[in-house]
């Protein structure tokens, strides 16, 4: 009775109350915001790095894998225990341990919610820059594992650019600190663990960099007749020397979905809107806003709206932020994709995406980070239709191909997870993958953390889930990607 033994070991290490194994308790931990699912054998909710280390050692002794889980909002199946084992939930590791406003640094536990850091440091005029759209619920641990981005990472960079150091638990169950508040000697293991999708280590502490809030922010919404013009405007701005804080795009299908709910006033025949945010000193924001408007006009924007006050800006963002919610009302399910292309290739790749969706008979709404060339096609489908999931996945694969063929990548911010493992060979040679495997071997010879992710395997991960909507719903009525 191996299972009983491991559970009693875990219980004695971290307390009875914090080890779940009844089937009805486990169900909550079998899914995230993707199409897949997989059931763990046990769930632990440790309260300290020591308890994490103890849990890892116990799992190792019993030869079962450990998969860390934050809020379960991942969009690549990262937190799904493909091979069963123990799911380690970080919800009790949710303390902000230190705010050092003078040095613009905070030290937090991995279960801290992204937005809570900014809330905590707001009185000092500071904030934590990476802003995944799920920031009201997703955890820093999940952000670190996925190297999450967000609308404003165009200017400020991704999670990796804001993490100075980590405390981790290794596969051997040892607590090790990497990096720190100051430069440290040795290979940049912090940079390696960020984005490693929970496969190298469990993160138990994160040292983040904080930024001063900008003095002034201007939001600009530009409406275009054609998607092409909007994409061209996006590249033209950047080529012209403006690097906005955010540069987002929504296509016609998204606008149509959003309009009845948000009443944003999008013209029914418009092809795309760009939502651009510029910030800095008042003077900088103003000058950049003028440059942005000039580019939009040159590319025949038919209407430009400007938001200066927080309320006006929020109104301009409403359509963008309400997009997923609106889609949810239009379609029983949607599949959120994530691909990247060089910004200049956006027009052709978008055309390819519409084409592919037409061919496969699906509607698609594109709402995405145009400034980074990071596409998020949302494919609408009805999961009750027999065989539809396979068709949607096939379409997803085709769209990823389009991105790769345009010199892009299979994921810009959601991660490889189990979903895209088999696409890795499209962008990486065998030798490239060997280098990644070696890196993993350097951390551990065993496959003890989150097996079945990142690297191609012949095994599939779990079954298809219809619970992703529940995960997305957790983000709130205004969930957006």
């Amino acid at each position, binding site marked *: 009775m191996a299972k009983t033994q491991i559970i009693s070991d875990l219980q004695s290490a971290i307390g009875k109350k914090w080890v779940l194994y009844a089937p009805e308790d486990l169900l909550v931990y079998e899914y995230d915001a993707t199409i897949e699912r997989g059931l763990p054998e046990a769930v632990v909710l440790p309260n300290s790095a020591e308890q994490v280390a103890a849990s890892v050692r116990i799992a190792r002794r019993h030869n079962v894998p450990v998969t860390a889980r934050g809020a379960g909002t991942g969009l690549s199946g990262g937190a799904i225990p493909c091979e069963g084992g123990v799911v380690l939930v970080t919800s009790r590791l949710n303390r902000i341990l230190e705010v050092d406003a003078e040095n613009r640094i905070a030290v937090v536990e991995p279960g801290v919610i992204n937005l809570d850091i900014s809330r905590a440091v707001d009185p000092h005029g500071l904030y934590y820059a990476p802003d995944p759209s799920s920031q009201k619920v997703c955890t820093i641990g999940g952000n670190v594992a996925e190297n999450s981005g967000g609308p404003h990472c165009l200017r400020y960079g991704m999670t990796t650019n804001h993490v100075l150091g980590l405390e981790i638990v290794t596969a051997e169950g040892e607590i090790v600190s990497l990096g720190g508040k100051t430069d440290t000697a040795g290979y940049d293991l912090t940079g390696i663990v960020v*984005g490693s999708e929970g496969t190298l280590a469990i993160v138990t502490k994160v040292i983040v960099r904080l930024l001063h809030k900008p003095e002034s922010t201007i939001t600009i919404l530009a409406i275009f007749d054609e998607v092409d013009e909007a994409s061209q405007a996006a590249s033209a701005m950047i080529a012209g020397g403006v690097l906005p804080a955010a540069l987002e795009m929504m296509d016609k299908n998204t606008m149509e979905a959003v309009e009845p709910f948000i009443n944003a006033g999008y013209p029914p025949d418009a092809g795309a809107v760009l939502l651009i945010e510029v910030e800095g000193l008042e003077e900088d924001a103003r000058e950049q806003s003028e440059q942005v408007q000039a580019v939009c006009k040159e590319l025949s924007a038919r209407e430009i709206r400007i938001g200066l006050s927080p309320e006006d800006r929020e109104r301009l963002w409403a359509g963008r932020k309400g997009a997923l919610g609106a889609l949810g009302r239009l379609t029983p399910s949607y599949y959120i994709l994530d691909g990247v292309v*060089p910004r200049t290739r956006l027009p052709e790749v978008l055309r390819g995406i519409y084409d592919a969706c037409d061919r496969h008979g699906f509607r698609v709404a594109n709402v995405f980070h145009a400034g980074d*060339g990071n596409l998020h096609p949302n494919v609408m489908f009805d999961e009750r239709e027999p065989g539809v999931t396979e068709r949607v996945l096939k379409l997803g694969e085709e769209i990823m191909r389009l991105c790769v063929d345009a010199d892009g990548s299979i994921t810009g911010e959601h991660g490889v997870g189990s979903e895209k493992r088999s696409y890795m060979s499209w962008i990486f040679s065998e030798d490239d993958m060997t280098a990644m495997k070696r890196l993993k071997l*350097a951390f551990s010879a065993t496959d003890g953390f989150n097996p079945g992710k990142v690297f191609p395997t012949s095994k599939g991960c779990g079954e298809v889930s219809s619970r992703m909507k529940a995960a997305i719903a957790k983000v709130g009525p205004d969930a957006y990607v």
Partner: protein
Amino acid sequence: MVEQATLTSDLEAIVGTTDIAAQDELASFTVDGVTPSAAVHPENAEQVADLIRLANDRSVTIIPWGGGTEMHIGNLPSRYDVALNTVRLARMIEHEPANLTATCEAGMTIGSLQDSLAKAGQTAPFDPHVPRDATVGGLLATNASGAARHFYGTPRDFTIGMRLVTGDGLVTKAGGKVVKNVAGYDMCKLYIGSRGTLGVITEATFKLAPLPAASSDLAFRSRTARDASSFVMEIHGRGLSLRSVALLNAAAADSASRRDSKTYFLAIQFAGTTAGVKRSLNEARSLASESSLKLVPDLDSGDACASFFERGEGETIVRCSTISAETPSLMEAIEEIAPSAQIVATPLAGIVRARWTNTEVGPDSLAKVRECARRLDASLLIEDCPPDEKGRTDVFGPRPPSLPLLWQMKQQFDPGNVLSPGRYVDRI
């Protein structure tokens, strides 16, 4: 020891007879007093891989060599047979202004890279004051930064793709050409800062930045490091368009021929939009006038900022990293130990770099400075010191808690220990 004649002919078989340095040129590839037996100039990644495979087969060691501007940094090489000079890997591969990205070979110098990008009004956000003859590969291998670090970050923050030949000759690609990419492990992070101990970088792709529309310099004198540092924090907190900041102690300022002042010298560069820079200048001036700082008219801050990379013969140079607020204490503490030390710091990034002439300070100054950094929780890298000192001490400081992982990485990526052996942390 390798047999010289056969080594040369084996190397020539890979790179050809013209791409191997003459005997009398070898001295220029000396590292910490060790002169290699050969120096080769491979032309592409395949040749690099062949050279590395040869090294593994023949138990020959290689040190990659870029512009040679930072080769003094590192522990003594445990062995050094061949310098692998990237001078012929110097092509610009791709620059698409509308993508704000560029790809070039590792041996391209920063000077020629920046000149070429500037034509499109863009820059690779390496510190604007790094030496022009430093190479892209060298800067990535050292993750070098200076006075503009708070603004642009370090190379790890803007490098999105790389090609690297591992210590056993795998030609690998890391990352890609898109600015946002989380496919697989972020291998670039492992290679950046690895100082030629895991592989030879042959190519890199960067996120670029627009060249600022306007920039302008300001300089101040300050009686204390603390006042200057607080001033910097204040203007940074206000969001003024600070691009570079260098705080020099009197010894450093005077040596940059800024008269015999006995005061600290603060050089600031603002950059951004024309209006933003104008306002920043005005606001900084008026803030300074309410403080103890004295404006120095008509000065270019360039030299001061470049002093992060200067060095001289017979010197000891240390680079400390601390939290911003401790910058002035660390500067003062070093001055107390080594009064003639020239110190340059950037309070926003908490970097303090000190150099002194070995004959002008007490013999135990280095040990004392190290101890003082340790007390202040600062890390310290000895960039340069007398070779016998290097024999006694690890220039990277105390062993980091992740040391076993570092050795594992070396084992995985350079199993034959042929690349820059002995030069890294814990003499990896």
